[in-house]
C-alpha cells in the first residue's frame, strides 16, 4: 500500500494504492484519523489505484466515517474499481458513505456544488 496526500483548495485528498489489508490497515487508519485530528473538514479518499481491500481495511473507513460525522467534517470516496466498489456495496457502505465515480465529482461534492450525504 502507498498513500499520497495532496491539498486541492480546502480539500485534503488521500490517494491509496495496491492492497489495503491486515498488514497495511493500521498505517492507513493513523493517516486518515490524523487528518481529522488536525482539523481537515473536507476529505476525499481517491481509491483509483486501490486493487484490494479486506474487512480490516473496510473497518478503517467505518471508523473514520463515524469520527468525521462526530466532528462535523465531510468524507467522500471516489474512483473505486468495479471489484472494490462491489465489496463496499456488499456491506452496505454505499448507504452510509458518499461514494462517487470520479475525482472530479469528489471535489465538486465536497465543495458543496452537489448535495452530499
Amino acid at each position: 500500500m502507498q498513500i499520497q496526500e495532496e491539498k486541492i483548495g480546502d480539500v485534503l485528498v488521500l490517494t491509496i494504492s495496491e492492497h489495503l489489508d491486515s498488514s497495511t490497515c493500521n498505517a492507513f487508519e493513523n493517516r486518515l484519523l490524523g487528518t481529522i485530528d488536525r482539523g481537515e473538514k473536507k476529505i476525499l479518499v481517491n481509491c483509483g489505484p486501490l486493487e484490494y481491500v479486506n474487512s480490516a481495511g473496510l473497518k478503517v473507513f467505518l471508523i473514520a466515517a463515524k469520527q468525521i460525522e462526530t466532528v462535523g467534517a465531510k468524507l467522500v470516496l471516489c474512483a473505486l474499481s468495479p471489484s472494490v466498489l462491489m465489496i463496499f456495496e456488499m456491506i452496505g457502505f454505499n448507504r452510509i458513505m458518499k461514494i462517487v465515480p470520479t475525482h472530479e465529482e469528489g471535489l465538486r461534492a465536497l465543495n458543496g456544488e452537489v448535495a452530499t450525504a
Partner: protein
Amino acid sequence: MLKQEGAMHEGTITVRLPADVKEIERLNRLVRQFGELHELPLRTLYGMNLALDEAVTNVILYGFDNPAGQEVKVCVEVADSEVRGEVTDAGREFNPLTVPPPNLAAPLEERELGGLGIHLLRSLMDKVTYRRENAKNVLTMSKRIR
C-alpha cells in the same frame, strides 16, 4: 475460443501457514499468482482471495488460545469451471455459518465494526459448507467461474 482455452487447464495449490497474521500477505500473494496462472477473471479471483483472507485471518485471530506453533491449511482448486477453497484448522470448534449477518441497514452511528468478514465470505461465494472432522474445522467454499 478464449473461454474454451480457459477451461483447458485445472489445478490445485495447498499451503500450510503458521498461525500468524503476518502470513496472510504470503497467502494472498500465492492465491493471486495461482489465479493468474489459471487465468481466473479478475472478480472471481478477488472473491476467492478475499474469502480465504477473511477465513484464515479469523482462525489466526480467534481460533487458538495460543497460536504459537499452530498452522492453518489452505487448498485452492480450479476445475470444472469452478474455483474451490478449503480451510482446515485444529482450533476451537467454530461454525461461521451460525453467525448472523450484520445490520446493513443501520445508520452510520449504529453500524458495528465487527462481523464484516464472515458476511463478505458468504456473500462472495456461491456455496459455503462447514464441518468438524477429526477435531478440526473444515470450511469449504466455491464459486462458478464466469
